[in-house]
Every structure is written in structure tokens, then in C-alpha cells.
């Protein structure tokens, strides 16, 4: 049996945390892959009984897997109360007719073994109708990281049954907001994609905005008002240290890493312009990519790093433009009704998600990179800042509710996620108000 060391967990704060040395052994068979389009209208019925052993941890892991699969909208976990065969017996040998009669097409079984501070979790994915094993995988990790094992298993299930990478073993970094809106405290925060393991990375003594992940998920680039000077900083999740990215005699904002992580593209506001500037992370050399009388903000690279989408008011109001990554050749791509902002390129390359302000409403939408095929996925009084899950199938963004009174009563800001077809919008539960989400790449 072979084991492959996996990259460590990212966790910030002052403490340096040991990498979990996630190890995985794998053995698979072949299984029927169900098209995602079909699963959207007809979610896959799947039974996930408690994994055997582990003193209750097996049930915890099964619960996290069920929640992941349910929340993505493409699976329909069968209610535990309907189960006929016991979880313990199924872990030994599934009696397929017991799972067939309760409507499950797929079955997950497994066993948790506590190896003194480390968990070894073995799981099997079964195709119930042909009574075949589709996948068998074992993960070992420090016991405290059992949730991560559940997310890794969820990703294997997603990939084997839908034929595409999942997005469950990921984190979301965001701005945690508290206090009255005129004196808001804004802290960097990070959590698992399902809202668990929430941690604050800054103490709130200075305001932060616009955090975005590095492609290796170990670093964050963000904007901070440290010492009342709005500038872009890098934050290292392992050491908890941050450093300013380049010296600019004006405000730098809306930073984002290039797909190879070597460049940060940002907006540099000085005098009456805001221009797009690329900063080389290693040498800190700067290259100005746009110039002229306009506010050019919110740049984002395409997945191969050859193009940048951004929003600009150069034509009179805010619209989306695509240019070459070296600057030049900017062409407008948004032509619908309203103002367009905060474009982000899908990791799949096929779509650009954006915020649209039209008729007093805010909306989150997607269009193809050439501007065609625009679709609004969600609309309401306030929402903005979409970010793609690493598989390009789900967006997170933040949604604001309108203040009802003169003192701001009733205002709130919450994270939401939605399938790129516009179905299955759900709130991501956070301990405080939350804005500016950024989805990490897959951690393993």
C-alpha cells in the first residue's frame, strides 16, 4: 500500500501549526458517471450511514458528508430513519436490496480506526443497482482534522459520480464585520467552505477589505487601512505575518493574484485616475497596465494568465472590459442594461461572474468572456463580490439587507452560495456579518 503525503492545512494567526501529513491510499473500480446537468434536475439519491468505529466519529464524518452533498444541490441524501441495514453491518457487507428499496442509487460505507491521536478512515462508494464498488479509499490524518477527512471523502464521491472535481476540501476567506456601520470593525476571517472552523486572522484594530487567496492557498492578498493608509498587503497563513506590497504614493485596492501566484494585479488610485498595475511579488517591480481618465478597478486574470477582466467608467459608467495581461487591447464586453462591476473569471475559463446594478437592484450574474450569454442568477436590494469555487460550478458572494430605520436597524450582510445555473441559493452561516468572500483552491 502506498501513501502520498499531502500539503498541509492552512491556518493563520500567531501560532504556527504543524502540517497534518494527510495520507491517502487509493483503489478504484469503474462507476457510472451521471451528468451534472441531469443531477441538477434529478439529484442523485445517496445513502451515507454512519461510518463504523471511532467512537461516534464515524457518525460525525457521515453527517458532514451528507451536508456537503445535500448543500451542493446535486445529491439527495436518503434520510437515516429509512435505513434498514445497520451501519455496522453495511460497513462489513452491504445488503444491496436493503439500500435499493429505500431508493438509494449510491451507498457510502466505511470504518474509522483510532490509531492513538491519528484517524485512519477507510471508505467505499457503491453503485447500488449493479451492486458494484466504485471506489475504495483510505485517509489518515490527526484526529482533530476529522472534518477535513469528511471533505476529502465528499470530493471523491462528487468526482466519481459526476465526473468533475468537487470543491469541499476548500476554505473561504472573508471580511467579518461587527458594530454599527459608521464605526464598523472589519477583521480578516477564514473558515471551511461549510462555515465550520471559523477563525479570525486580524484583531480588528485596523480595517481590512478584499482578501483573495494565493493559488497555493497559503497566502492571502488584501487591502488594509493600517495606520490610516489604504494599501495592499500580503498575509502568510502559516506565520500569521503580513507585509505591504510595494510603495505607492496613493491608494492601492482590489488586489488579486495571477494564476501562477507570481504577480498581484491591483488598482492604483492617484489624483483623478485609478489604473490597473501588475506587481511582481518577488521583485516588487510594478508595471502599469492601463492609463487615462477613468476609474479602472477590480482586475482579475483568466485561468491561463493571458487576459485580465476589470471594470472601468472610461465610457461614462461602470462596464466590464477585457484586455491582454500585458496591457492594451481593452474591449468592452458588457452591454446589458445597468452598471457592471467586480468581474471574476471562472477557473474553468468559460464564464465571467459579475455584479450588476440595474433599476435600483443589485444582481449577481455570469456571461461568457466575449460578453454573450448573460444570465442574472440572483437579484435583490444589495449583493456583490462573486467568487468561484475551484471547480467553477458554484459561486459565493455577499448579500445585504436594507436598513429599515435611520439608525441602520435591519441592515445585515451575509455570505451566500449559488449554483452557476442560478439554482440552490443558500446562506453560508458565519458568526458575524460577513462580506468579500474569496474561495480557496482545493487544499489537497
Amino acid at each position, binding site marked *: 500500500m502506498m501513501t502520498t503525503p499531502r500539503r498541509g492545512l492552512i491556518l493563520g494567526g500567531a501560532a504556527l501549526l504543524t502540517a497534518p501529513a494527510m495520507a491517502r491510499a487509493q483503489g478504484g473500480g469503474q462507476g457510472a458517471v451521471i451528468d451534472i446537468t441531469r443531477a441538477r434536475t434529478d439529484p442523485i439519491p445517496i445513502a451515507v450511514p454512519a461510518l463504523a468505529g471511532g467512537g461516534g466519529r464515524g457518525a460525525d464524518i457521515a453527517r458532514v458528508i451528507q451536508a456537503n452533498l445535500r448543500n451542493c444541490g446535486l445529491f439527495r441524501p436518503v434520510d437515516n430513519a429509512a435505513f434498514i441495514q445497520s451501519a455496522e453491518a453495511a460497513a462489513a457487507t452491504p445488503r444491496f436490496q436493503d439500500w435499493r428499496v429505500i431508493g438509494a442509487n449510491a451507498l457510502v460505507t466505511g470504518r474509522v480506526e483510532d490509531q492513538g491521536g491519528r484517524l485512519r478512515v477507510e471508505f467505499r462508494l457503491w453503485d447500488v443497482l449493479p451492486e458494484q464498488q466504485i471506489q475504495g479509499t483510505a485517509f489518515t490524518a490527526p484526529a482533530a482534522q476529522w472534518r477535513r477527512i469528511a471533505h476529502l471523502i465528499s470530493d471523491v464521491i462528487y468526482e466519481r459520480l459526476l465526473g468533475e472535481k468537487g470543491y469541499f476540501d476548500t476554505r473561504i476567506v472573508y471580511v467579518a464585520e461587527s458594530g*454599527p*456601520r*459608521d*464605526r*464598523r470593525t*472589519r477583521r480578516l476571517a477564514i473558515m471551511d467552505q461549510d462555515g465550520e472552523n471559523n477563525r479570525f486572522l486580524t484583531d480588528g484594530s485596523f*480595517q481590512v*477589505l*478584499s482578501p483573495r487567496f494565493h493559488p497555493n492557498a497559503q497566502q492571502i492578498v488584501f487591502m488594509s*487601512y493600517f495606520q*490610516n*493608509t*489604504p494599501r495592499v498587503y500580503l498575509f502568510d497563513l502559516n506565520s500569521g505575518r503580513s507585509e505591504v506590497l510595494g510603495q505607492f504614493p*496613493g*491608494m492601492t*485596492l*482590489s488586489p488579486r493574484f495571477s494564476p501562477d501566484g507570481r504577480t498581484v494585479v491591483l*488598482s492604483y*488610485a492617484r*489624483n*483623478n485616475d*485609478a489604473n490597473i498595475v501588475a506587481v511582481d511579488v518577488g521583485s516588487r517591480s510594478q508595471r502599469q497596465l492601463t492609463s487615462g481618465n477613468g*476609474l479602472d*478597478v*477590480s482586475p482579475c486574470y483568466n485561468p491561463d494568465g493571458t487576459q485580465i477582466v476589470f*471594470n472601468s*467608467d472610461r465610457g461614462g*459608467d*461602470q462596464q466590464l472590459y477585457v484586455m491582454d495581461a500585458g496591457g492594451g487591447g481593452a474591449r468592452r464586453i458588457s452591454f446589458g442594461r445597468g*452598471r457592471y*462591476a*467586480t468581474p471574476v473569471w471562472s477557473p474553468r475559463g468559460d464564464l465571467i461572474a459579475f*455584479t450588476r*446594478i440595474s433599476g*435600483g437592484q443589485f444582481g449577481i450574474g455570469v456571461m461568457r468572456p466575449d460578453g454573450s450569454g448573460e444570465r442574472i442568477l440572483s437579484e435583490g*436590494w*444589495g449583493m*456583490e*463580490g462573486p467568487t468561484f469555487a475551484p471547480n467553477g460550478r458554484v459561486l459565493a458572494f455577499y448579500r*445585504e439587507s*436594507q*436598513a*429599515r*430605520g*435611520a*439608525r*441602520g436597524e435591519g*441592515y445585515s450582510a451575509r455570505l451566500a452560495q449559488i449554483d452557476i445555473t442560478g439554482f440552490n441559493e443558500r446562506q453560508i452561516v458565519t458568526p458575524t456579518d460577513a*462580506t*468579500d468572500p474569496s474561495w480557496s483552491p482545493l487544499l489537497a
Partner: protein
Amino acid sequence: MNAKILGALGALALLAACSSDEASNAAATGAGGSGGLAGGAGMGSARPGSQEDLVASVGDRVFFDTDSTQVRGDGRATLERQASWLGRYPQVSVYMEGHADERGTREYNLALGQRRANAARDLLVASGVSGQRIQTVSYGKDRPAALGSDEGSWAQNRRAVTTVR
């Protein structure tokens, strides 16, 4: 006693600064407590050259129309008064804060706020204040003065505010 009078003066000056902005009058009254600077001003004595003094004697803020970065006529008068106030206190340096209302996206509004701050700073400089004494900073839509989600509040929030450093 003294403090009371000054407090009342401070509130009056704030209202006067807003009075030409018909849409925001009601909100200015309603938001008196949350206006931040005016609320604080009432509590202490207006030391000459202080923020409280600036608010009470000439007004600390100017307002903008939706999506506009042009200082309006009433705002120009306020900035001229600020310039002569700054002329009386040459040791004072200020921040010029640019702000936007909540009906735009966060990052764009940061850039918009920067433009508003620059526009107000340029008028102070044109009135004889050294640019060295003014540092611009934008908070976009993230530090509203009025907390309602209505036209009156938005008019209060599209502003450039001069604050003593």
C-alpha cells in the same frame, strides 16, 4: 454651561453646512447623533484649531450628487471657509476623506471616494492651502455618516470630510 453652548453651536453649524442640500435636511437632523464628529463636538470645548472648532466655525464636509465627483456651489463656499480657517492655524494638517453612498460596489466606490477627496483637496489648494498639509484617504461606502437606506441618507454619505490629523 460653556460646553452646552458650544455643543448647540456645533449642531447648528452642521445643519447650516447641509442646508442647501434639500434632500438631506431631514436625514441630517435625524442622524445628528450618528454623524460622529458633531456628536463628539458637543461633549468637549472647541479648542481653537481643533476638529470641533472646524466643525463649529466653518463646517467640516461638502456633498456630492450621485456618481458625481464635482464639488457643488455650496460645497465650494464651505471649502473656501475651511481654507481661511486653515490659514489661521498653519500648524494644522488634515485628512481629506472621500466617501460614497451604499448604492455602488465596494471597490469602485473606494476609487470614487478617492476622486471626491481629490476634488475637495484641489479646491483647498486653489484657495491657498499647501497640498503638503492635506492627505487624502477614501473610505468608499464603508463609513457612512447616515445609516438609513434612503435617499436622504445617501445624500449625506456622498461627501468629503476634512478632519484634523
